């Protein structure tokens, strides 16, 4: 009985030593693994989506290889539903190797604005949930999640319609001229058209007009839109229905009362 007990004892001791040595060396080697997240870039794609790209560098100077390296980024809206998601997967990073990759994520502006018009008119912050996971030496898996926020610039910041100026056009019709102003705080140049429809106090349609938008990034836009409206239908108050048509989004009608 003594020999089997000794064999069990010796085997257990060796296995313990091996296990502890492995765990300690894995933890020690992890300090030599460096992760570097570069400056995020925001640009437009050919499909008129916002491309959020983040350069990622992983330098594995540790003793073990890294496996199943994955970065997942999610952007939820104010209600918590996901509006954009991106994932980058590297199956193996061998020891002594440096991997550079770009983590891309596209944001569909149209979808984003459908969820909340706040993104269109107000500057806000987009919450970013980023999860980085990996397996060290194929055994120990780790996952780090980080919450970040990036500023979101509204493409139609401070959108306002000015006072209506009436100019008699002919016996039956009057020209209504309204100034439109906003500042493009978005990370892209904005071009498209704005359509304005005018209704009086009884919700009777009076007329419509449209103007083009050309607002560069961080540039302000000031234009006038002219509508030919029947003089008889003009009331002191009423409302405008404003529609926006751009390559990035279509939005409307935005109801703005007047009077």
């Amino acid at each position, binding site marked *: *009985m003594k020999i089997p007990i000794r064999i069990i004892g010796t085997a*257990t001791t060796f296995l313990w030593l091996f296990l502890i040595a492995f765990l300690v060396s894995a933890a020690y080697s992890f300090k030599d693994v460096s992760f570097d997240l570069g400056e995020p870039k925001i640009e437009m794609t050919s499909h008129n989506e916002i491309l959020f790209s983040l350069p990622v560098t992983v330098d594995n100077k540790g003793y073990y290889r890294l496996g199943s390296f994955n970065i997942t980024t999610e952007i939820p809206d104010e209600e918590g539903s996901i509006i954009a998601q991106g994932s980058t997967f590297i199956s193996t990073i061998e020891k002594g190797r440096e991997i550079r990759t770009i983590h891309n994520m596209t944001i569909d502006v149209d979808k984003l604005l459908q969820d909340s018009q706040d993104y269109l008119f107000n500057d806000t912050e987009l919450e970013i949930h980023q999860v980085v996971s990996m397996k060290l030496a194929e055994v120990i898996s780790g*996952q780090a999640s980080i919450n*970040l926020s990036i500023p979101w610039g509204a493409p139609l910041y401070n959108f306002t319609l000015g006072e209506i100026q009436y100019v008699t056009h002919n016996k039956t019709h009057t020209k209504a001229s309204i100034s439109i102003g906003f500042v493009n705080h978005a990370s892209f140049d904005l071009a498209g058209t704005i359509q304005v429809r005018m209704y009086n106090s009884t919700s009777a349609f009076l007329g419509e007009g449209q103007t083009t938008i050309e607002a560069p990034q961080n540039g302000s836009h000031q234009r006038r839109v002219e509508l030919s409206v029947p003089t008889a239908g003009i009331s002191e108050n009423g409302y405008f229905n404003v529609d926006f048509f751009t390559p990035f989004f279509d939005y409307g009608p935005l109801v703005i009362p007047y009077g």
Partner: protein
Amino acid sequence: MAEVKKDFKKRLQEITFKALKATIKSVLLYGIYFVLSMFLASVPEMFPGFQQIIETFVIVYMIFTIFAELTSETIFQHFFNTTKALFVILYLAFSLKSGVIGITFQNGNLIIDLRSFMAIAMLLSLLGLAKSMFQAINFLNAKAETLHV
């Protein structure tokens, strides 16, 4: 009188030998802990409380080892060895909980999955417990045989 003196001398030699063996084992254990803690110097910064967990474990483990050595060739040695093996199992279970360790940072958190390590460590601890039990059985068996003869 001379026989009593000889017996006392023999017992003193035995106790001294046991104490020396216990000291060497403790010094070795502490040496291993000291070397490993140098490698893991950066870990306590990431895991608050890690140092305390390891230190408590090492202290209790060393106490059991010393007592087991001092009471060697008695049933108490096996009692301490079994308690030591049980302590390892329970301490692993309590300190690692489900084997998934989570740490919260300022704007995020880190999760480390040590379930596979925990499973292997538990199996080895159980093997250690089984060994202690076998040793105890063997000891009692040998004692019974001696008494019978």
